[in-house]
């Protein structure tokens, strides 16, 4: 790279390592910080450090939190009889944003992915089983509808069978606002298989 300043170059390289940031964007961000006041840079640096120091996994559901137990697990208003299993904290955030789910969560930390060498033992499946102590009535498996996500869902189903009254899977099919003719064959078939009573 052709930068007259080593510090600038270092920052551009550091930013370009972030997901979705290319060299050009990294350069723009670095130049912005250079032009901005010192307080802004200090605030950014401190925020990043605080993130690394304070954020950890909830000891119950493995959601991101600054306490030992996250606010969702601590909340008295959540329905403790339903657990929704998701792959990553970002999936939990996506469901929380909707405000349509009032139960608890369990973050697996990924999916079984043989091609990447990820096995069930690398996920938090055992900890999920430990949570099924009789108070939980339903577990919703909300892994993504990918090959790995479906494989993980099937594995969880086998693990939990007989340990909880109801194991459900989030619906798969035609997205809201979509059209049948523009969907792929797998989606259409899964939508037909997962049809529900009109109510």
């Amino acid at each position, binding site marked *: 790279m052709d930068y007259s300043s080593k510090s600038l170059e270092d920052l551009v390289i550091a930013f370009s390592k972030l997901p979705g940031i290319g060299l050009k964007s990294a350069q723009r961000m670095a130049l912005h910080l250079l032009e901005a006041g010192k307080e802004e840079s200090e605030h950014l640096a401190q925020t990043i450090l605080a993130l690394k120091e304070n954020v950890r996994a909830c000891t119950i559901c493995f959601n991101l939190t600054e306490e030992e137990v996250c606010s969702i697990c601590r909340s008295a208003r959540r329905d403790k009889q339903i657990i929704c299993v998701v792959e990553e904290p970002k999936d939990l955030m996506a469901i929380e944003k909707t405000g349509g789910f009032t139960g608890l969560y369990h973050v697996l930390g990924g999916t079984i992915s043989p*091609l990447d060498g990820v096995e069930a033992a690398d996920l938090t499946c055992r900890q999920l089983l430990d949570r099924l102590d009789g108070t939980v009535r339903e577990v919703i498996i909300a892994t993504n509808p990918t*090959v790995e996500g*479906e*494989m993980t869902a099937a594995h969880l189903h*086998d693990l939990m069978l007989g340990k909880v009254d109801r194991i459900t899977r989030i619906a798969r099919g035609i997205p809201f606002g979509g059209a049948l003719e523009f969907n792929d*064959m797998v*989606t259409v*078939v899964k939508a037909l298989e997962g049809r529900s009573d009109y109510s």
Partner: protein
Amino acid sequence: MAIIKTEAVVLKGWKLGETSKILLLYTKDHGRVKAVAKGARNPKSQFKGCLEPLSRIAVIYYDKPARDLQLLTKADLVTPHYHIIGDIAKTALGLATLELLNKAVAGEEPFPQVYDLLCSTLERLDRSEKFSEGIFWYFQNHFIELLGYRPNWSACLKCGASLRDSGGMFHPSRGGLVCGQCAGGAGGAVISGEALEILFWMQTCSISEACSIEPDPVQTAEIRRAFDLYFKTHLDYLRPLNSLKVFYEHERSKTARE
């Protein structure tokens, strides 16, 4: 830059940025190709669900020889594998097939026979209701033959005596099976005549017959070991397969539950 229109099986995929995906494809006419599918993870993407591993798709991509990553512009499902998805055993076996192929084939050299074998393996795996592992055994038997290492499951490599009744011992230094006499007490993995009979039959049977066999647990273990040793001896870099580990683990826990 050329516009390539061909068929492919998705071997692997990686997330790229917010919505895109990098794919490793095994194409019918150009062997292994790496391509980027821009916006593939966007719910409104034209690629929708057809870029998952194991999918057999018709593709169009821009090919620039100097570039490592080609640009995928269109993909449509040719054969959906409805029954593989969600079935741990079938998915693990399907992924093991992809893993083995991905490790063995190199570069953009077409190998239509391997492509056809891959497609028929996945198609049969999708439809199988009985012994799905038999289909993976069939694939291994024929794949290694296409690579030029046809196993001899019927006779001693040293003296030529038939092993199909007596069984044999796997001798890595000889690259295959020898009879007890020729092994000369050198040890090695014992493979029974019944297991060898299945392996030999699989070299000539059709793929639809491959899942009709009903080996007992001892024969199953012997056949698994035979393939493992054979691949390790001739193509060391191909093993171990992570997907097979998942499959064996699933089988173990299924047996334990029963």
